[in-house]
């Protein structure tokens, strides 16, 4: 058969990772094994046959993977795959694939898929990774560890313990004892020939009644399974469980460079942010603390490149800010002496909501248990000023709106804070409310929780079912709208050179924050994190499950785009902004972004209907 007969299909696969790496005759063979189907929106979902799993390769159209609970797992366009999880796991199909846009799909039968995995390592690895990624995205509102995205190279220690094949086991054991490790690599002329573990010493030396003069090569495990330094931690776990081993030699270009053990992997789950927070907590001097805070942008970068969920990134970065704030408070208290009364350090806005990203500025205040006298006022003024300028030096800029604890306006007693909130609630002047709304996203970072909760509960009691206040807050939430018209214009301007971009913060994330705030306050929900607010609102029945999940999806998607965009800006050493240049988007991304904005638009309409109908 003439090899170029299926050229258009082959050239499509040729450009598709991981098919792109296959030799040309394998690819031709692979084309021959395909079958082609066309799926129409009219049939809603792709009929997936449990008994006949396939690798589905999207040639055109748009699809959506949802799990058994109807929650969004993935969106797919040209060149994306589905069906591989059941091919890899052998488990039944639990996900549904909905058809968003009619499209052509190539099907690769399991026999061919398995053959390619067996014969081409990179092909196998690609789908293992895709599977790992899919698992991570499978459930929302759930924490996931970084095991699946970290690379092996981040785990191995620089020091490599190796012995020669002719060394005695006694010598090897003494080396292992002095290095506090349970295994050693056996090298012969720089090449990896074996691995010696505690278990080998027990089973092949002691249990056999041999003495310590036995050479390593008789006790070692020959031709050990090894892993590439660039592989994912997740893959190391797979290998270990597959071969029932606890030690994996790590090689780079065929040269052994270290070892990773199952213990290393368990340790790695207490990941990078935790280390940073511990380091913050260890510092005793302001200059050192500032130096540590310089790692925060790098932390953000590594989280973005690990493809963590935007919601998790926000929570992680905020816990770092919280730790810094607490450390600054205790450091300064050590200088100023004990506080004259109980107090709470309040975080508002993004820190309150736990969705901080790069270049956040400060929004904080001080909640005092009682009305301070003059010396107490001086004490707290000194403390707040020191903490605020400390934060400023750590990279959290002074708030341009002066919403800071060092501003006497926001350093108030419990009674005065209460009065402030009650005034906003009782006579909601739209303009005042615009500035006040961030105060309703408050959280105590430091201080007795009882003091904070008593304030928060008294506020929520006033906001719950308060029609006038909620209508005003809704009006405030509707002043901006998502840039839906932009997409139509964008189509026209596609070839134009300068488009300013889409403001993902002020016309995206912020709108969802506003919507969630209204619903949460209407139901007296204390949660301030937007994703959690949405979830509580679903549980409380103020938001329908479908609308709530859609809104949470949109929130995550827009926040993810914003972070990915900033990650790119950071890499290209451009100033970080919230503006996304739509030229840089693939058509699928554009499609998804438009969907997300559409959800925001619909949610705004629903909000108006629910809270403003009588006005």
């Amino acid at each position, binding site marked *: 058969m*003439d090899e170029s007969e*299926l050229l*258009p299909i082959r050239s499509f696969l040729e450009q598709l990772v991981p098919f792109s790496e296959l030799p040309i005759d394998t690819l031709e063979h692979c084309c021959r*094994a395909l079958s*082609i*189907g066309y799926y129409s929106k009219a049939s809603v979902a792709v009929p997936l046959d449990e008994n006949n799993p396939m690798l589905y390769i999207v040639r*055109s159209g748009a699809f959506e993977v949802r799990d058994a609970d109807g929650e969004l797992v993935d969106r797919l366009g040209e060149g994306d795959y589905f069906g591989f999880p059941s091919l890899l796991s052998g488990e039944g199909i639990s996900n549904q694939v909905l058809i968003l*846009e*009619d499209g*052509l799909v190539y099907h690769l039968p399991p026999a061919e898929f398995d053959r390619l995995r067996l014969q081409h390592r990179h092909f196998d690895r690609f789908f293992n990774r895709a599977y790992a990624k899919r698992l991570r995205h499978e459930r929302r509102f759930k924490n996931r560890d970084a095991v699946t995205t970290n690379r092996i190279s981040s785990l191995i220690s620089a020091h490599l313990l190796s012995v020669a094949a002719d060394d005695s086991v006694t010598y090897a054991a003494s080396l292992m004892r002095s290095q506090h490790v349970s295994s050693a690599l056996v090298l012969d002329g720089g090449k990896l020939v074996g691995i010696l573990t505690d278990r080998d010493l027990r089973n092949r030396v002691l249990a056999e009644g041999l003495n310590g003069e036995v050479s390593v090569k008789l006790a070692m495990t020959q031709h050990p399974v090894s892993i590439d330094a660039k592989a994912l931690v997740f893959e190391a776990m797979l290998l270990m469980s597959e071969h029932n081993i606890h030690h994996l030699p790590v090689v780079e270009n065929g040269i052994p460079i270290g070892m990773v053990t199952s213990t290393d992997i368990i340790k790695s789950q207490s990941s990078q942010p935790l280390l940073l927070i511990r380091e913050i907590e260890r510092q005793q001097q302001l200059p050192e603390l500032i130096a540590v805070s310089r790692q925060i942008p790098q932390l953000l970068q590594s989280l973005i490149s690990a493809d963590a969920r935007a919601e998790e990134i926000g929570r992680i970065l905020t816990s770092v800010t919280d730790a810094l704030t607490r450390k600054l408070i205790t450091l300064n208290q050590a200088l100023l002496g004990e506080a004259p009364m109980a107090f709470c350090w309040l975080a508002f806005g993004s820190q309150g909501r736990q969705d901080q990203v790069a270049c956040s500025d400060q929004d904080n205040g001080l909640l005092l248990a009682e009305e301070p006298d003059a010396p107490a006022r001086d004490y707290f003024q000194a403390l707040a000023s020191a903490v605020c300028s400390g934060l400023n030096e750590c990279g959290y800029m002074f708030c341009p709106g002066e919403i800071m604890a060092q501003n006497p306006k926001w350093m108030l007693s419990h009674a005065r804070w209460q009065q402030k909130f009650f005034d906003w609630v009782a006579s909601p002047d739209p303009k005042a409310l615009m500035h006040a709304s961030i105060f309703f996203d408050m959280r105590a970072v430091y201080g007795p929780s009882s003091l904070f909760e008593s304030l928060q509960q008294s506020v929520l009691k006033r906001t719950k079912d308060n029609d006038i206040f909620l209508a005003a807050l809704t009006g405030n939430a509707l002043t901006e709208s998502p840039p839906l018209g932009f997409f139509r214009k964008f189509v026209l301007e596609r070839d134009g050179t300068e488009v300013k971009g889409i403001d993902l913060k002020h016309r995206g994330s912020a709108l969802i924050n506003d919507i969630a705030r209204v619903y949460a306050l209407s139901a007296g929900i204390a949660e301030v994190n937007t994703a959690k607010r949405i979830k509580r609102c679903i549980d409380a029945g103020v938001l329908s499950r479908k609308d709530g999940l859609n809104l949470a999806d949109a929130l995550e998607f827009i926040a993810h785009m914003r972070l990915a965009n900033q990650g790119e800006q950071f890499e290209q050493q451009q100033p970080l902004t919230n503006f996304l240049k739509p030229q840089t988007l693939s058509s699928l991304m554009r499609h998804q972004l438009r969907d997300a904005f559409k959800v925001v638009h619909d949610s705004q309409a629903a909000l108006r209907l629910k809270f403003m109908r009588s006005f």
Partner: protein
Amino acid sequence: MASRWHRWRLQYQLWRADDGLADYLSALQPLLQQSSLEHVPLVALDLEMTGLNAQHDQIISVGLIPIERGRLLLAKAQHRLVCIDGSVGQSATIHGIVDQQLQASTLTQQEMLIWLLQMTYGKLMIFHHGMLDIAFLSRLSQQVYQRPLHVPVIDTLQIEQRRLMRDRHVIEQGSLRLHACRKRYHLPLYAAHNALIDATACGELFLAQTAFSHWSKQPLDDYLFWF
């Protein structure tokens, strides 16, 4: 229904002769009894010719791909080159087939017809603009079986034309070409021009045209065209 006369003519042909062609036509009979497309085996085809005149021009290659349960099976796809009398002439620049390849291939024009009838035995053929292809096959049938080929086929061009007219579209010049039709269903552009790729392209177009509802709900008669 106009097809009743065609069905009768098919019957008549079976009664009149007992040869390979009659056998082929009788294998089509049970398919025509089906009320929907669901259990009908299908095969998409394309012929490449030296020109558009069935009397003077000749077939130079054939591509075909079976469709089972709504899927095109590349594993069962076939592509054959055909010997011609004389030279490929100008169309070689379109199809990229040179004389040398044609001479090396095994099928003569008449052998090709017999081979094609074997490959499509018991299956309904799908063409894009089948009138032209059937005219060429019919002339060969005349030579081999001494009578023309009268068969029902599915024609994606006709389906598209009917659909556009029903939706009151003005049918512009060129809008019924295979690529123009495929574009309306967001099917990818296949640049290559060979019979197998065009057969695949035609098969995909047919899947797209019928994708809006389940095959069990698609009356067979709506898709049959008789030549």
